[in-house]
């Protein structure tokens, strides 16, 4: 184009910002990617611990739950599990929605709903674990 000296007329007006907006990294893009990895690393031992605990707790009573979480280590591991799980869940579901839901309003509503459910459920779990353990 430059060699022939002709300019090409482009009929759409889009700023550079408009072209990249919503496509990912604008300085903070790697933050959520990294958080998803960090939580997944933490969840490797935590998940194994939880599966083992869940099996041993099969058919337990409420008193059994209290006895289990009353020791410091299970309570702390439980809190770590809750935080890492819901953070990871929020980030993971967010990626799925962003990839497959194309309608703008539906996507935004779902993302807000997911964030809301994750925050409320995480708080419910944390408070419940503390009430059982403390």
């Amino acid at each position: 184009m430059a060699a022939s000296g002709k300019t090409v007329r482009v009929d759409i007006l889009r700023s550079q910002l408009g072209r990249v907006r919503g496509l990912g990294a604008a300085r903070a893009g790697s933050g959520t990617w990294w958080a998803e990895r960090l939580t997944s690393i933490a969840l490797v031992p935590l998940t194994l611990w939880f599966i083992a605990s869940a099996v041993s707790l099969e058919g337990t009573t409420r008193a059994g739950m209290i006895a289990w979480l009353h020791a410091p280590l299970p309570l702390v591991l439980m809190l770590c599990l809750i935080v890492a799980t819901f953070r990871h869940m929020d980030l993971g579901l967010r990626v799925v929605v962003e990839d497959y839901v194309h309608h703008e309003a539906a996507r935004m509503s779902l993302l807000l709903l997911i964030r809301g459910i994750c925050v409320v459920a995480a708080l419910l779990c944390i408070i419940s674990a503390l009430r059982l353990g403390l």
Partner: protein
Amino acid sequence: MKDVRDALMLGRTSDGKLAVRPLSPHLQVYRWPVSMALSIGHRISGVGVAVGTLLFTWWLVAAAASDSAFATVQAFLGSGFGVFLLLCWSAALVFHFFQGIRHLAWDAGWGFENRIYRTTGWAVVAATVVLTLIVWIIGFVVW
């Protein structure tokens, strides 16, 4: 243009006119190697585990709430449908766990060679079946 991302799909023909670039053929035309099934399976199992996490929330909240609430949860989880949900949840969790470790290995730069890629893929399938079975066999013995 319905979406800002459509802007990236614009190209120019040799005479300078704007044209929408063609898309590559979509999923249905490909054979399904194990990696492809595992890749989408990782997402599906992730969503499944997320649903199961709400069950976990109910279980923990009920335990903190009252004896009767906890008895209700335990009765539900012990019912046929409850056991079915727990089976799905545990299998999805174990699969997501092993496939997640495979992903972490890739993030560290390991395992991209074709042979290793396929081997680790089948290893994930085998490990999922084995660990899920072990968990449930131990669960039945304890019970």
